[in-house]
């Protein structure tokens, strides 16, 4: 049984983030892989077992300070899980909180839990628009970004891919997202996973591996996914 753990579903769900959880669940179901969605909110105890996929989305500023404080209590569990190969996807605000910190232009710094070697600074301009990324692992990825935080990766931190169109981590160094073991952080929503099924399947395969189940997944008809991705890849940023 694969458990899809949706962290802070009430606070961190802003840009159709739910679509990622829907996509993971559906692509398991279409292959007869048993899966279920589990919600884990503020104050809830988090335990991560083999076969779990962890997801955290983006949120409004108001929600994020409470989430940052709560995430601190779950930090050890998440870091250990990622180290031992648990698949994880973090989008936008969730991605920022999985770095070392987020320093907004005004207001207090938000502490992160350091799953990724990344720091985020508040910027005065919002980076909004369609984004196309080329990833060594996954090929072309498409999405929509909407953030003012500028994320700088540490020297040894791997990025998810190179920006072909749009802004990415900080609008300057062409990098987008971060990747550590089976954990991915990215600014791409849209929702992200439905139009990028290679990433969805990679997360599912990683969970299967943890369970000792076959990691070569049954092929699905992805013609609709490809069509939507092809269209999005042609859009202006």
């Amino acid at each position, binding site marked *: 049984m694969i458990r899809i753990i949706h962290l802070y579903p009430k606070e961190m769900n802003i840009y*159709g983030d739910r679509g990622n959880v829907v996509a993971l669940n559906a692509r398991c179901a279409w292959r007869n892989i048993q899966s279920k969605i589990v919600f884990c909110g503020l104050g809830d105890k988090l335990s991560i077992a083999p076969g779990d996929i962890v997801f955290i989305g983006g949120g*409004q500023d*108001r929600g994020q300070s409470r989430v940052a404080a709560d995430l601190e209590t779950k930090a050890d569990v998440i870091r250990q899980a990622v180290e031992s190969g648990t698949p994880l996807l973090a989008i936008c605000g969730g991605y920022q909180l999985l770095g070392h910190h987020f320093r907004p232009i005004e207001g207090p710094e938000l502490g992160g839990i350091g799953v990724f070697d990344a720091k985020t600074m508040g910027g005065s301009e919002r980076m909004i628009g369609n984004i196309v990324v080329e990833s060594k692992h996954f090929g072309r990825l498409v999405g929509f970004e909407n953030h003012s935080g500028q994320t700088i990766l540490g020297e040894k931190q791997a990025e998810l891919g190179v920006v072909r169109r749009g802004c990415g981590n900080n609008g300057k160094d062409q990098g987008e997202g971060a990747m550590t073991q089976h954990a991915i952080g990215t600014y791409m929503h849209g*929702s992200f996973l*439905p*139009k990028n099924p290679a990433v969805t399947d990679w997360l599912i395969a990683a969970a299967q591996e943890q369970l000792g189940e076959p990691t070569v997944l049954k092929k699905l008809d992805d013609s609709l996914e490809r*069509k*939507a991705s092809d269209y999005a890849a042609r859009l202006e940023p």
Partner: protein
Amino acid sequence: MLVYNSGMPKQLTILSAKIAFRIGRLFGKGGSALPGLVAERIDPQVLSKLVRGNFRKGIILITGTNGKTTTALLTAEILRADGRTVLHNRGGSNLMRGLLSTMIQACNLGGRVKADTAVFEVDENAFPAIVAAVKPTHIIVTNLFRDQLDRYGELDATAQKLAGALRKADAMAWLNADDPLVASLASATKNSSFFGVQASTSTKLDDEWSADSLVSPKSGVPLIYSKRYYSHIGIYKSSNGDFSRPKADIEATHPQAKQDQLSFQLKLGNREITVRTKLGGFYNVYNVLAAVAVTYQLGVSPDTIRVTMQESKPAFGRLERIDYKGRELYLLLVKNPVGFNQIIETFLLPDHEVSALIIINDNIADGRDVSWLWDANLEALSEKKRNLIVSGQRADDMALRLKYANVAKFTTKANPEHGIDKLVTSVKPGQKIYIVPTYTAMLSIRSWLAKKTGIQEYWQ
């Protein structure tokens, strides 16, 4: 090009803008923003200058995420029935330039408008600047939902903008008691009242994903709902007691909402009346109620209100019925997840067989980010027999959404007009076809239907 010159006489500004309006019409456009653009380029202060000296009986601004157009239309209709002369921005042109264009078209060269009252729907982002320019006497805030985040930003930021504008306004504000974020705006107003609904029903749809305000606007602790009508609209109080649904000054009770009509009871002063309209959908109870509240406050009699509501028709594109080749087509504008869920719950779920065309565009006015489709509960459509077609610039995204919602049967048509023709041939005469378009898709499909059926273009 035109040169900035605020010293130009008002008459000349008006004349230039009126010429721009005529030229726009020659090319068959509604021309809703062009005259405003011209006037604004000549004199940035022109809106406040034009409004000053007009509208001696009041200026009513209506803002919020959903329901602005319908609420404004109903408010204008009731006031007209009461004998007032009303200027109303009908085309839904609700930005600074749109308002200005409405004023330019209506005024004479001296800047006089033959209207004693203005009813303007106003975009949330444009609200602060418009409040400063027109100095409203009354303000209605309908609701606040997540909406086109690439344009509006986060909901909290929108609420803060509205609060800032309300603080500076010298107006009577009508706030939706059942929307926690809107109700919390009361602290920013000098003078506010609440409208709200007491109903025994709760939503049947799992629609929490479209809700943003399930926590106390004061402390951020969760809100507990004794009734949740839809999204975050309902009767609530925070778990620590610091914030609760305020008592409504005007309250609808016993609401009955169907697809093509609704009714509710209401106490106005010591009169108990039943309000009935031909608008369907529970969400329209709020729009009717807000219009009733502000017009009653302005002195319109309960009988005039009741009679006008019985006759009122939907605003363009909002549940508007267009007969085409013997079939009833209904235009249901969709802008955001809450609106989509209301359309699903009211129109697409109850019927055994539904024929619908969903048209998703991603122009700036639609929102370029289509992520919001994933927050609407399309899963609810998976179980029944449906005749669904998806179209528009982002038809593939909508198709993907339906696929992941396990809605097995639908087709994609690149051209929305072909979608309509296909649905028309597949349903029997007299049956309903729902068209669910985003904003720019609605304008173009409505224009096409206007040519085919002879209904008026929206600006006529």
